[in-house]
């Protein structure tokens, strides 16, 4: 019974994410493309939730659907001078086509040659608590985590420094 519901939910989410991805690539309007990307990230969050990866689903919504989508729109908003500029002409270029074909061929070869190992579901799904404990225990990932936070802080300070006026530096 639950399996049927899971399958239906998976079908809907998969359809939404693929359709929005295609929509994002084919949209000529950058704002529409940004919203298609938003739909893809929310569908991905739904897929994570179906896999009982609740923390990843939350992060997907908070970071990709929330922050990255907002940042995309922010950028679009400050770079567009007129509303009509949002609609981009379709440029055709041979190098672009060649790149796309090469990439598609590489992915196709990799997928055709690879063997997909069916995943095994664990008996107990680790929750947010287990994830946090694993992340912050001394033998775990606390050192890489701290290094990452240091790098981010440095980037933040650097950004503030660069964005000042010439005379204030």
């Amino acid at each position: 019974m639950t399996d049927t519901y899971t399958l239906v939910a998976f079908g809907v989410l998969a359809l939404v994410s693929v359709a929005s991805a295609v929509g994002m690539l084919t949209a000529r309007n950058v704002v529409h493309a940004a919203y298609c990307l938003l739909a893809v990230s929310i569908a991905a969050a739904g897929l994570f939730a179906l896999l009982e990866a609740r923390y990843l689903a939350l992060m997907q919504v908070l970071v990709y659907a929330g922050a990255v989508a907002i940042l995309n729109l922010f950028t679009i908003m400050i770079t567009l001078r007129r509303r009509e500029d949002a609609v981009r002409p379709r440029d055709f270029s041979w190098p672009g086509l060649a790149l796309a074909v090469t990439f598609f061929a590489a992915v196709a070869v990799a997928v055709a040659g690879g063997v997909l190992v069916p995943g095994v579901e664990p008996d107990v799904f680790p929750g947010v608590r287990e994830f946090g404990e694993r992340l912050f225990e001394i033998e775990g990932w606390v050192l890489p985590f701290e290094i990452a936070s240091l790098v981010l802080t440095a980037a933040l300070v650097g950004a503030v420094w660069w964005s000042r006026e010439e005379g204030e530096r």
Partner: protein
Amino acid sequence: MSPVLIATLRVLAAVGLMLLNGVVLIYMLRKVLGHLHVRLGPTELGPAGMFQTLADVVKLLTKEDPTPGMVDRVLYFLAPLIVFVPSLAAYAALPFSSSIIAADLDAGLLFTFAILSLVTLGIFAAGWASYNKWSLLGAMRSIAQQVTYEVPLLLAALPPVMIAGSMNLADIVRAQQGSVWFIVPCFPAFLFFLVAGLIEANQTPFDMSEAESELVAGFATEYASMKFGLLFLSEFSNTFVFSALMVTLFFGGWTLPFVPDALLSGVGGAVVFMIKTYLVIAVLMWVRGTLPRVRIDQLLSLGWKVLLPATLVWIVITGLAVKLGPALIGGVS
């Protein structure tokens, strides 16, 4: 009952609460603001004008719904939905009492913030699709506000989380059950949360995205009838969710001091929770009726230059107190 049926009933309960909350808040807004302005508010229809809001709902539903000719059709119709759905989902993790909670999530606080941050995307869609300068200005302000205040809001909510040691909203309430409400040890964090939350909930001293004296109705200018209704319903609902979060984080949720927990485990706790939430909303309306609207540049510099450093400092202080406090007290005794 099948799990799907239960889930559906829970969603319907949230929709019902959201609609009811909208009706109650419109009435409350008129009455509270009216008395703050030394006038009566609605008086004609029903006792103390109580049915005025119902008449307004009927009006909103039966209004003509014109679509301006130049709008971006897809986004124009989607925007009220993008605004409404996250507002509805935000009810999921709110602990009305220890047994009445739609989804008892381990990271309930994070879930609520993550979901509420999506509302802005809908507001931007509304403003951009409307093809109207005021709408677009409102949408731009709303995005700028979101970028500025998302971080201080989360940081201001962290001290209670650090003391309780959990992001589960029900656990945060339980941590306040035996001891004092977190407003006592986290008073500065409460003030930061109040300011950042007023901004996130788009409440008046900071409702830049629809400032009616400058932008007509901001992002909602081109919307009419029930599409406008959805935008406003979600706005009132966000006020409710924000107040409920404040009650949960700082005012002990469904608990009351000196009242045994057994009395407040079920419906009784939910009643206490609702009363507290509406008291917080009344205070927000009091702020709204008292203070003038700030300017957008003042708002943004307040966020970056005051609120962000202040919340960070307070987190450091709380962290030191949480880690060193027990050791110091243990050393003295």
